[in-house]
C-alpha cells in the first residue's frame, strides 16, 4: 500500500502535491499535507456548498475564514462568536472529548483578541432508556446495554464540560440536550463560545511583517492526537506499537487559564501583530494558515519547541494536536516584553519561528531542512464537488399520513397524554446537567440556563446580548432543507422571546459520510435551507463548523445542523420577563397560527413511535412579525410570562410555564385551533408561535400589539389551581424528572 494512501490521500491528491512541489514530498511534508488536506481541516467536501451561506451585513466585521466571526455591537465594542464540534473524541472518552472541545472553542475566541465570557453546549445522545414505544421501534432501538452506555456517555460529557469550563474560568450559560436512537453510536458534542472586546483589540491570524518573530505559547508538545500519520513512524517503534501514542487527548484547564490571561495582557499592551490558536493539525496548520493569510513565509525551528517526550520525530511535532497552545507573531523589539508577560502568568513560551518574504514554510530540525512547501498549498487544500442523490427512503417517510395513523385523543385522555409526553427525555428537566456548570462567573448572567435564551449584560453599557442554540434532527430526517430553516427560526425566536433583536448566526453541520451521495444531498439541501433562513430573517452566517463521518456500521445520523443565534438588547432596564406564570388570575394567550403539523412531533414519536409526513410548516413573514411583537412585549413589559412554542406543541409550552412557577392553568384546549382535532391542537409543532400571560389590565395592550403585528391571537384561559388541563403539576414535574442522570 502506497504510504500516501495509508495517510488517507488519494492518488490524485498525491499527484497534485507532487505537481505543486515539482517533486515528491518527503515523509514530514507528506504527513503535513495529509493532515491539512483531511476533511476535518480542509473542508474539501463542504467548502463548495458553504460558499452559498450569506455572511455580509453592515455590522459584520469578520465572517467565515478567520477563527471566529466578529460583529460590531455598538459603544466601540465587538462581539466574537464561533461554534465547533468534538463528536468522535467524545465517543472514545466522553469526559476528555467534551473537555478538549470546550478548550478548543475557547481558544478560537481568544485568538481574535477577546476574553471568552460565555460558552454553550449542544449535546445529542442515544436514548437513555430502553422503555417506551420510541425506544423499541426504531432500527437502532436502545436496548438495555445501549441505554446504559448512552447514560454513561451523557454523564461523562456533562462532567467534562463542567470540569474544564469551570476550572478554565468561562461560565457555561446555556445549551440543550436531545436524544434519538440515531445518535447511539455517534454522540454529538457541539460547543459555542463568545467573547466581547474593544474593536481596536481585534487580532488577525496573519504572519505579517517580514522579520517578525513567531512565539509558541502554552503547554508542551506531545504525541497527542497524531492519529493516522503515525504510520510514518520510522525506526523508533513500529507502526503497530500504539503504546507510544495516546489514543485520547487530555485537556488542562489550568494551563489554558494561564494562556488566556497571558494573551489578554499581550493584547492590552499591543505586543502582538498576529495570533493563531493551535487546533486541528497543530503547528502545521497554525504556521501554514498565518503565512498564507499574510502572503509571507515562515522559517520554523523545531529544536526550540518544548517537548513532553524526548524522542519525537519532526512529523510528530508538526502534526501533534496537544491542547492549550497559541502561536503569536511579535515584532522583534517586543519579544523580550512578550516573554516577560508569559513568564508573569507562568505559561511556557518559546521563539520558534521568523516571518520571511519567500512565501514558503521552511522547517528546520537538528540542522536539517525537513520541510519546504508553499503555505498556501497546505492551507487551501482541495475542493470536491461530490455527487449527491436524494435518498429514496424519503418517499415512504413523507407518504406516511399522521391523520390516518395517529389517534385524535378526547378531553378525557389529555391528563394521561400530557404526563406520558413529559416523560420524553427530550422534554426532561436538564438541571441535573447545568447545575454542574458555573453559569454566573463575571456577574453578567441576567438570564441563565432554564430560560428560552441566555441574556448577558455588557458591563459599562446599557446593552445586553442574548444567545440561543437549537437543532431539529428529526425534522431534517424528513426534509433537510426545511428542517434547517426551522432550526434557524427556532433559535431566532428564542432570542426574540427574551426581547433581543436577532442579528447573526453560526452553524455546526453534523452529517454522515460525505462519500455517500445521499449524505451529500442532505448536506447541500441543509445548506440551502440555512441560506434561505439567513436571507429571510436577515441573519448573516458569521462562522461555523462541519463534522462529517458521524455514522456507525454505514448508518448515518439524522442530518443535524445546530444553529446558534445572537441577538442584541439596546437598553436592558430590568431582567426580561421569564417563562413561568406569575400569579393566579393572569390571562393566557397563544399568538401565531397552529397548523396540522403532527407527523414529526415529539408526541407522535415518543408516545406512538411515529415519524412521517412533512416537517412542520413555517411562514417567514409571520416569524419576522412575531420577533417584532415579542421584542415590543418585552421592552414595554406588557406580559407576566413569555415562552415560545417548540417541541411538544402548545401543550408542552403550557406545562413548562407551570413547572417554572408551580402555578397551574385552566385553558380551553379547543380555543386556539378549533378547526383541528384535539391531538393536533395540543401537540402540533407549527413554527412561529408563543404562549403569553398577563394581568387582566394588560389584555387590551397585548391585543392591540398583536393586531399591529398582524398576528392571530387567542385568549385561551387563565392561570389558576395546580393542574394543567387536568394533569397535576406534581405529576408533570415527576414525569419531567424521569431522566435525571
Amino acid at each position, binding site marked *: 500500500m502506497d504510504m500516501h494512501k495509508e495517510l488517507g490521500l488519494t492518488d490524485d491528491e498525491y499527484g497534485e502535491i507532487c505537481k505543486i512541489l515539482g517533486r515528491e514530498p518527503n515523509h514530514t511534508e507528506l504527513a503535513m499535507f495529509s493532515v491539512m488536506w483531511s476533511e476535518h481541516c480542509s473542508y474539501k467536501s463542504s467548502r463548495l456548498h458553504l460558499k452559498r451561506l450569506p455572511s455580509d451585513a453592515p455590522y459584520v466585521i469578520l465572517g467565515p475564514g478567520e477563527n471566529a466571526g466578529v460583529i460590531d455591537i455598538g459603544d466601540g465594542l465587538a462581539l466574537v462568536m464561533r461554534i465547533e464540534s468534538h463528536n468522535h473524541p467524545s465517543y472514545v472518552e466522553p469526559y476528555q472529548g467534551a473537555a478538549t472541545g470546550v478548550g478548543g472553542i475557547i481558544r478560537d475566541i481568544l485568538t481574535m483578541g477577546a476574553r471568552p465570557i460565555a460558552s454553550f453546549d449542544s449535546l445529542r445522545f442515544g436514548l437513555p432508556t430502553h422503555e417506551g414505544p420510541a425506544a423499541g421501534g426504531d432500527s437502532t432501538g436502545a436496548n438495555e446495554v445501549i441505554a446504559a452506555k448512552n447514560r454513561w456517555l451523557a454523564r461523562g460529557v456533562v462532567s467534562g464540560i463542567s470540569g474544564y469550563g469551570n476550572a478554565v474560568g468561562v461560565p457555561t450559560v446555556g445549551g440543550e440536550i436531545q436524544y434519538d436512537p440515531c445518535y447511539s453510536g455517534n454522540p454529538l458534542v457541539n460547543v459555542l463560545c463568545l467573547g466581547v472586546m474593544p474593536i481596536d483589540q481585534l487580532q488577525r491570524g496573519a504572519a505579517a511583517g517580514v522579520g517578525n518573530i513567531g512565539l509558541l505559547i502554552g503547554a508542551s508538545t506531545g504525541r497527542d492526537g497524531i492519529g493516522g500519520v503515525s504510520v510514518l513512524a520510522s525506526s523508533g517503534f513500529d507502526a503497530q506499537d500504539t503504546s507510544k501514542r495516546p489514543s485520547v487527548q487530555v485537556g488542562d484547564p*489550568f494551563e489554558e487559564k494561564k494562556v488566556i490571561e497571558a494573551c489578554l495582557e499581550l493584547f492590552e499592551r499591543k505586543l502582538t501583530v498576529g495570533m493563531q490558536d493551535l487546533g486541528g493539525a497543530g503547528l502545521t496548520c497554525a504556521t501554514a494558515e498565518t503565512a498564507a493569510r499574510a502572503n509571507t513565509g515562515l522559517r520554523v525551528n523545531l529544536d526550540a519547541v518544548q517537548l513532553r517526550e524526548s524522542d519525537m520525530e519532526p512529523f510528530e511535532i508538526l502534526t501533534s494536536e496537544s491542547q492549550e497552545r497559541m502561536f503569536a507573531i511579535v515584532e522583534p523589539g517586543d519579544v523580550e516584553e512578550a516573554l516577560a508577560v508569559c513568564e508573569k502568568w507562568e505559561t511556557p513560551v518559546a521563539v520558534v519561528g521568523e516571518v520571511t518574504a519567500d512565501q514558503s514554510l521552511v522547517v528546520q530540525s537538528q540542522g536539517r531542512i525537513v520541510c519546504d512547501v508553499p503555505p498556501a498549498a497546505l492551507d487551501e487544500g482541495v475542493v470536491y464537488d461530490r455527487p449527491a442523490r436524494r435518498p429514496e427512503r424519503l418517499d415512504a417517510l413523507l407518504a406516511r399520513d399522521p391523520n390516518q395513523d395517529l389517534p385524535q385523543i378526547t378531553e378525557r385522555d389529555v391528563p394521561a397524554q400530557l404526563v406520558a409526553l413529559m416523560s420524553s427525555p427530550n422534554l426532561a428537566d436538564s438541571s441535573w446537567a447545568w447545575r454542574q456548570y458555573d453559569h454566573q462567573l463575571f456577574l453578567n448572567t441576567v438570564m441563565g440556563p432554564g430560560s428560552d435564551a441566555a441574556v448577558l449584560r455588557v458591563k459599562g453599557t446599557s446593552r445586553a446580548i442574548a444567545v440561543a442554540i437549537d437543532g431539529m434532527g428529526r425534522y431534517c430526517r424528513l426534509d433537510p432543507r426545511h428542517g434547517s430553516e426551522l432550526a434557524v427560526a427556532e433559535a431566532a425566536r428564542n432570542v426574540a422571546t427574551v426581547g433581543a433583536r436577532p442579528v447573526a448566526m453560526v452553524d455546526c453541520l453534523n452529517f454522515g459520510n460525505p462519500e455517500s451521495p445521499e449524505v451529500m444531498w442532505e448536506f447541500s439541501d441543509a445548506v440551502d435551507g440555512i441560506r434561505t433562513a439567513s436571507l429571510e430573517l436577515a441573519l448573516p452566517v458569521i462562522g461555523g463548523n462541519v463534522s462529517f463521518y458521524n455514522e456507525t456500521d454505514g448508518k448515518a445520523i439524522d442530518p443535524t445542523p445546530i444553529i446558534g443565534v445572537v441577538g442584541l438588547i439596546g437598553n436592558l432596564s430590568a431582567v426580561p420577563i421569564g417563562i413561568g406564570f406569575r400569579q393566579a388570575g393572569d390571562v393566557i394567550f397563544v399568538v401565531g397560527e397552529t397548523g396540522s403539523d403532527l407527523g414529526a412531533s415529539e408526541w407522535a414519536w415518543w408516545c406512538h413511535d411515529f415519524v412521517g409526513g412533512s416537517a412542520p410548516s413555517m411562514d417567514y413573514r409571520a416569524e419576522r412579525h412575531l420577533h417584532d411583537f415579542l421584542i415590543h412585549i418585552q421592552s414595554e413589559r406588557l406580559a407576566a410570562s413569555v415562552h415560545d412554542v417548540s417541541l411538544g406543541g402548545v401543550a408542552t409550552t403550557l406545562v413548562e410555564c407551570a413547572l417554572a412557577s408551580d402555578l397551574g392553568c385552566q385553558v380551553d384546549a379547543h380555543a386556539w385551533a378549533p378547526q383541528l382535532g384535539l391531538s393536533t391542537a395540543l401537540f402540533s409543532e407549527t413554527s412561529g408561535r408563543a404562549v403569553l400571560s398577563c394581568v387582566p389590565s394588560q389584555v387590551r395592550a397585548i391585543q392591540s400589539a398583536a393586531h399591529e403585528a398582524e398576528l392571530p391571537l387567542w385568549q385561551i384561559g387563565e392561570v389558576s389551581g395546580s393542574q394543567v388541563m387536568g394533569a397535576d403539576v406534581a405529576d408533570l414535574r415527576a414525569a419531567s424528572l424521569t431522566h435525571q442522570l
Partner: protein
Amino acid sequence: MIASLANPSLKASGSEGPGPSFVVAVPIFPGSNCEHDTQYALVQVGAETVFVHHSDKALPAETAAIYIPGGFAHGDYLRAGAIARFSPITAAIGRAGADGMPVLGVCNGFQILCEMGLLPGALAPNTQGRFLCRDVHVKVENIATPFSRAMVLNQVLRIPINHRQGRYFADDATLRHLADNGQILFRYCDAAGMVDESDLVHNPNGSIMAIAGVTNENGNVVGMMPHPERAIESRLGSADGRPVLESLVGGSSPGAERE
C-alpha cells in the same frame, strides 16, 4: 476608568464610601478566576481593590483587609488549595491574620486558608460527588466578626455556591471547640432558617453540622463557601451578599443597591 468588558465599571476609586478609601488586597493565584467579580462587588460598597500577585512577598502598605477570591488555584489539582498555600504571599497573609487584620477566604479562598492552617477543619469533595452551582440559604450565627457585624443574629441570607469540594469537615474535638468559642459563622439552612445536616436539599454538599463558614479563634479570619460577591444585585438574583462586604467597610455604604 473605562469599563473593560469582564472587568467591572470602575468608579474613580475612593470617591464614594465612608471617608478615605478602604483598601482591600485581593491575592491572585494561578487559576483564581473570581478576582474581577470581587473587585466589582467591593466597588459597590465603596471599597478599593488592589490585586496582589501570588509570588509577591508583602501586601501593599495601605491594605486594610484581605479577600482571597474564588477560582481553581493550580487547577484544584491534588486538593483544592493544597499547592496554593505554598505561594510566597501566604506568609504575608498569615502574618496579617495573626495581627488581627480582617481576612476573608471565599470558596477557593476558604480552602486555601484551611490548607494554610489559618482556619480549622478542611473542605472535602461534595457528598454527591458532583459540582454544585446554585443558591443556598445560610443562617448567621455570629455577628461579632468584621464580615458579619452589619447583620442580625439568625438572619437568613440567600447566596450562591459554586464548588466541587465544599463539604466542611472537622473532628469532634474541633467541632466542639468551634461551637463553644462561637467560631461557627454561617450554617446552611432552609428559607425559614431551619438547619438540618442530613437534608441534602438544604445542605447540598453534606457539610458536617451544615457548616458553611467559620472564623479563627480571634474572629478576624473568616472562610465561607458561598460567594457574597455573586449576590450584590437583586437583578442577578440576590443582594444578600452585600451585608458581608458592608460589614467589612463598616456600616452600609451610602450608594443604594445598584439596580
